[in-house]
């Protein structure tokens, strides 16, 4: 498989801005129209001091490309997700410097054939380099996808 050689590799950081309209579209799509996500006045009066973004929002960011890696998006299955925030939720207007690291690649036998398990870590930092969140995702390379990749 073409994945092992990327273990330990990182992307260059990419700056993302938490945009008000992007948060609004996102919370509409997930069906969570909390005023703290969309109503500026209500959010200002709250303990957050302004609009925030929902916990799963960081998956919408760009994290840069790991050099040489073409992510075979079609057919990849999401196995696990973790996100943890350092000290506060993301706020609308935040500038977030994001990068990704190819953490590991493993294979395991399943009833349907050999499965590949790709673990990517993703990081978000503020302009001063302070960590805002850490994310980890496991993606599964299915036997059907493997066939396509090896063809």
């Amino acid at each position: 498989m073409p994945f092992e050689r990327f273990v330990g590799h990182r992307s260059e950081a990419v700056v993302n801005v938490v945009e008000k309209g992007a948060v609004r579209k996102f919370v509409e799509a997930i069906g969570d129209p909390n005023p703290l996500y969309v109503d500026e006045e209500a959010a200002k009066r709250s303990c957050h001091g302004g609009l925030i973004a929902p916990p799963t929002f960081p998956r919408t960011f760009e994290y840069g490309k790991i050099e040489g890696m073409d992510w075979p998006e079609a057919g990849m299955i999401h196995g696990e997700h973790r996100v943890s925030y350092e000290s506060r939720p993301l706020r609308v207007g935040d500038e977030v410097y994001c990068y990704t690291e190819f953490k590991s690649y493993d294979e395991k036998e399943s009833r349907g054939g050999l499965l590949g398990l790709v673990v990517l870590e993703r990081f978000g930092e503020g302009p001063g380099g302070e960590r805002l969140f850490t994310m980890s995702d496991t993606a599964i390379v299915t036997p059907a996808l493997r066939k396509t990749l090896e063809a």
Partner: protein
Amino acid sequence: MSEGTKARPAWEVGDELEERVLPPVTRLQLIKYAGASGDFNPIHTIDEAAEEAGLPGVIAHGMLTLATMGLLFSPHLEHGYVKELKARFSGMVFLGDELIIGGRVANTEDAEDGRLYTFEMYASKGESTVASGKVGFLVYED
């Protein structure tokens, strides 16, 4: 207090969140989520792509199921935020599936700026679990 404002939560270990039954998953919802999240993996929206990947039909984004776990904490966001969220996807969600989301308090502890409540969470359809994991919700001090 304005409408919808809730008192500061103070949960005990074993307390359960009120279960939410979500409307059946629709293709339009998956298309909207694809657009809003930037996840255009076609196994979530296009039947042929799903079949090529060996699936019986399009499946919902795992992250959409996870986002609905966060939904259960939405009423409490005036007092804190979701500090941690982790889940394992154990089943697929197809069009028409009705998900039930719930959770219970597994642990409470003092944190630097408040109290951290850890919940064991699940998303299920009928008897089968499609995702399970944990949410850490931090309630700020006064």
